[in-house]
C-alpha cells in the first residue's frame, strides 16, 4: 500500500489509486460544508517548494492543506541564486533542518522531486516535474472521469497534443492504464515521444482515428511561444488540425467528455464554446483538485523516514 512519497503514478498500484480516489470523494464533502476545515493536520507544517511558478497548483495545495488545518508555507527559491551558490540538494537539506512534515515540490526539470525525496526525511509530493509526472493532476482527472462515467475500467481515453513535453500526459497514461482504460495519444509526429508504445498506449496522427469511439478526450496545453515553428508550423495550422471543436467531437462517442489541465489557450487546443460548456468538465477538474490534494496530504503525511524518528528518539 501507499508508499512514503508520491513521486509519480508509475509507482502506484491500482489499489493505491482507488484508495486515493475513495478518500478524495469523502474530502469533497468537507468542501461543501459551511466550515470548510477539519483539524486533521493541526500543528503539521506543509511546505510548498515551488522552483517553477504555478499559481494554480500552488493555490490548490494551499487550500487543501489549510482545509486540513496544516500550516502551509510557500517557498519559491529564485532560480538564479540557486544556480550560482546553492544546488537543489543544498536547498533540500536546508529545508529538512526546519523539520517540515510534508514537502510539495514543483520543478521545471524532471527528477528533482525524486532527488529531493532521497535526502529529505519528510514525505515528498511531486507537484509536477519537467516532462516527467504530475501525479495529483492525473488523480483529479481520474476522479473527474469516475464521477462523470461511474467507472474508468473499459473506457477509451484519447490524449491530444504535446505528449513529448507533457508530465500531465505521462501521469494520465499510467493512471488510466492502471485503472483499466485504453489510452490513445494523437499529436503532430514531432510531439509523439520516442518509443511511446512502451507506455502501453497507441499513437495516432489522425484525429478522426484517434477520437473514434472515445469516451474521454483530454487536450493538452500548447506552449505557444516555444513550440510553434519547431514542432509544428503555426498555431493556425495546429488549431485547424488538432484543436478540438464540436465537428471533430462527432467522431467520438455521443456522451464524450472533454478535459484540459488548464489554462486553456482558447481557439487553439479547444474551440471557444468548448472551453466553457459541456461536454467540457474543466471546472469540475479544478474542484476535484482540492479534494485530491486533501486526500494526498492526508494519506501521505503519516510517514517519515527511519532517520527522522530515530533522531527524535535519540534526542529524547
Amino acid at each position: 500500500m501507499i508508499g512514503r512519497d508520491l513521486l509519480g503514478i508509475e509507482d502506484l498500484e491500482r489499489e493505491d489509486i482507488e484508495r486515493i480516489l475513495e478518500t478524495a470523494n469523502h474530502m469533497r464533502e468537507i468542501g461543501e460544508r459551511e466550515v470548510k476545515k477539519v483539524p486533521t493536520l493541526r500543528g503539521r507544517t506543509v511546505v510548498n517548494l515551488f522552483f517553477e511558478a504555478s499559481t494554480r497548483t500552488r493555490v490548490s495545495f494551499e487550500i487543501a492543506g489549510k482545509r486540513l488545518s496544516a500550516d502551509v508555507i510557500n517557498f519559491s527559491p529564485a532560480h538564479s541564486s540557486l544556480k550560482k551558490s546553492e544546488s537543489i540538494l543544498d536547498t533540500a537539506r536546508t529545508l529538512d533542518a526546519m523539520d517540515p512534515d510534508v514537502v510539495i515540490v514543483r520543478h521545471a526539470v524532471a527528477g528533482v522531486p525524486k532527488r529531493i525525496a532521497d535526502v529529505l526525511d519528510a514525505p515528498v509530493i511531486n507537484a509536477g516535474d519537467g516532462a516527467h509526472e504530475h501525479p495529483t493532476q492525473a488523480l483529479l482527472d481520474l476522479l473527474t472521469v469516475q464521477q462523470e462515467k461511474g467507472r474508468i475500467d473499459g473506457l477509451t481515453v484519447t490524449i491530444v497534443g504535446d505528449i513529448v513535453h507533457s508530465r500531465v500526459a505521462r501521469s494520465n497514461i499510467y493512471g488510466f492504464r492502471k485503472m483499466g482504460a485504453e489510452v490513445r495519444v494523437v499529436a503532430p509526429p514531432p510531439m509523439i515521444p520516442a518509443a511511446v508504445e512502451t507506455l502501453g498506449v497507441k499513437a495516432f496522427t489522425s484525429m478522426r482515428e484517434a477520437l473514434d469511439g472515445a469516451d474521454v478526450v483530454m487536450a493538452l496545453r500548447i506552449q505557444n511561444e516555444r513550440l510553434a515553428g519547431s514542432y509544428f508550423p503555426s498555431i493556425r495550422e495546429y488549431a485547424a488540425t488538432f484543436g478540438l471543436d464540436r465537428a471533430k467531437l462527432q467522431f467520438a462517442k455521443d456522451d464524450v467528455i472533454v478535459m484540459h489541465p488548464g489554462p486553456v489557450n482558447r481557439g487553439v487546443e479547444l474551440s471557444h464554446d468548448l472551453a466553457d460548456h459541456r461536454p467540457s468538465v474543466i471546472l469540475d477538474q479544478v474542484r476535484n483538485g482540492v479534494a485530491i490534494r486533501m486526500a494526498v496530504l492526508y494519506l501521505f503525511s503519516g510517514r517519515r523516514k527511519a532517520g527522522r524518528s530515530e533522531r527524535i528518539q535519540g534526542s529524547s
Partner: protein
Amino acid sequence: MTRLLIRGGRILDPASGRDEFGDLLVEDGRIAAVGPGLDAREAEVLDAEGAWVAPGFVDLHTHLREPGQEYKEDIGSGGRSAVAGGFTAIACMANTHPVNDDPAMTDFIIDRAEHDSPARVYPIAAATKGLEGRVMTEMIALVAAGAVAFSDDGKTIMNGGVMRRVLEYSNLVGVPVVVHCEDLTLVGDGVVNEGPASTRLGLPGNPAIAEDLHVARDVMLAELTGAYLHVAHVSTAGGIDAIRRARERGVNITAEVTPHHLTLTDEETLGYDTNTKVAPPLRSKADMLACRAALVDGTLDAVATDHAPHAQYEKDQEFSEAPPGMIGFETAAPVVLDLVRTGEITPLELMRRMSTNPARILGKPGGNLAEGQPADIVVFDPERSWVYDAAKGYSKSQNSPWDGRTMTGRAVATIVGGRLVYHVDRGVLVP
C-alpha cells in the same frame, strides 16, 4: 643496479602473444627478462601468484582538470588514481582553463606531470583555438612540445569545412585527430539516450542518430583527406557500422569505447542519478551489445575511460544542469573484466585493448613486455573481490555510478619505468 622480480604470475603480453606462467625481471627501469624460474639474487621480489602480469594500461581519454579546475582533479591526483587502477600512461584532453591550445600549456602539463604524477601523462592539444571550432592550432609547434594528438573533444567541431581543414593539416604531423562525434543540432537539449528511458524519465532525449551521422561525416572526411582519425567513446551500433565499413575500405581510423558504454545501458538513468549522465549518453541494450561485439572483433581498438571528474555540488544539480561525465580509472579494469567472465574475450585480447592498442594509437612505448622495453607493468588479480568506495579513491571527485558496488578484479601492483608506484596494500607510493 635496481632489480625487481615479479614472480609466479600469468604473463600476458599482447605484443608477442605470450600467455604463460612465469617470472618477469625488471632492471634499471626496463624489462630485463621474462620466463620461468628467473634468478632473483639482490632483487626485490613481488609475488604475483594467481595474478596476471601485463603491460600497464594506457588510457587514451581522460580529463585531469589542471590548470583551472583543480577542485575537481589535478594532474597529481589524476595520476595517482590512474596508477591505482593499473594505468601507467594516460592522455589528457585539452579542455582545461586555459585551454591546451598553446605549446606553453603543453609544456606546463608535461612539466607538472613529471613532478606530480606517478603515471606518464601525454597531453592532447586542442584542434582549434579555445575549442571554438574556428581557427586551427599550431599543430607542428604543439607536437614539438609533446602533444600526442589533437582534439576539441566535447566541443564537437560542427563546421564541416573547419573539420576538413583540420584533418588535412594534421597530415603534416601525422598524429591522430580525436573526435567526439555528436551532431549537436540533433542532440538539442538531449541529456539521456532517446528511447523508452527518456520517455519514461521525461528528460529530453539525445538520439543515437546524432552520433551515427557525425561518425559518418568524420569518417568520410578522413577518407577524403587521408588523415588519421580516432573516434572517441563510440556508443552506437550505427557509429560502429560506419567505422567498420570505412575500415574495410582502408580508411585510416581507430576507435575507442568506454567501460560504461560496454557494461551499462540507459536503464541506469531511470533513478535520475546524475552520475549516470555522460556524453555520449548511456545507450540501449542493443547498442551496448554492439559495442561489446565490436571491441571483441577489433572494430573498436581500445578501451578508454573518459575519466571526467566533477565536484559533488555540481552533480547535485538538476539532471539537465549537472555536467556530464564520470570518473573511471579505478573501476575500468574490473568493469571490463566482465567480458572475460562471459567468455566474450580472452584475457590476452582484453589486455591488448587496454594497453598495446592505445599505446600504438598514441605512438608511444607501452603495451609490450619484450626485453628492453620500459618496465610499465600492471599486476592484476582477476579474482579479487572488493567494494568500490569512491570517497576512498585517489581522485578528488567521486562521481561514479559504481560507487558502493562490489567489484571483481583489481590492480594489486603498478610499475612505471621500473618503479613500484602502487601496491594495493600500501597505496600509491610516489611521488
